[in-house]
């Protein structure tokens, strides 16, 4: 049983489109995250969501918006996709804020914008 699952695994789309990536965790964790990993493998946090508190990395464009229907899900919606959005997006979860306990990552979604 996968602890943190993301769908889709691959996503190819045209510039200007709107897309969503779904994430679900079955670990009972109360904090979820979205990370972006670029071609140089840099892992940058985009959002964390804990008990309805959203913490946004100030460098993330407002075209990106997380949506959490419940504690087990944190979806990522992206408007007006740009070429520079191409990357691997990882969802993760932890119990409490990351740093006190380990983070579990999903398998990643490779987004390619053409």
């Amino acid at each position, binding site marked *: 049983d996968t602890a943190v699952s993301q769908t889709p695994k691959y996503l190819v789309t045209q510039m200007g489109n709107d897309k969503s990536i779904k994430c679900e965790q079955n670990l009972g964790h109360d904090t979820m*995250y979205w990370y972006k990993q670029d071609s140089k*493998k840099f892992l940058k946090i985009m959002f964390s969501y804990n008990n309805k508190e959203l913490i946004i990395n100030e460098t993330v464009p407002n075209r990106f918006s997380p949506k959490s229907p419940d504690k087990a899900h944190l979806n990522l919606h992206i408007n007006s996709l740009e070429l520079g959005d191409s990357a691997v997006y990882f969802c993760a979860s932890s119990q409490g804020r*990351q*740093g006190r306990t*380990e983070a579990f990552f999903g398998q990643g979604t490779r987004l390619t914008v053409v």
Partner: protein
Amino acid sequence: GQQVMQIPQYQHVQEGEDFTTYCNSSTTLSNIQWYKQRPGGHPVFLIQLVKSGEVKKQKRLTFQFGEAKKNSSLHITATQTTDVGTYFCAGPHRGQNFVFGPGTRLSVLP
């Protein structure tokens, strides 16, 4: 702002050689975590260090947290091809989210 740096960026070793990656922070860290990402995979948690001067071992892996809690290291003894991947350290940013270092990409030649 707080930054977490890692060196080297890349390391190529012959199987059986030792490997060390270093993580340095511009500010004191309350704790630090290490993750490994295999090629094509996702980051997987290895360990967390909390105490000043702490040393932890996992089989051939030895993790250290500096006395000043501003640096850390991961040492692998007698590397194997299964050690291939990118090793990330991560430290707290503004007391909340974790900032990942740029990673050290390890190649092991058989």
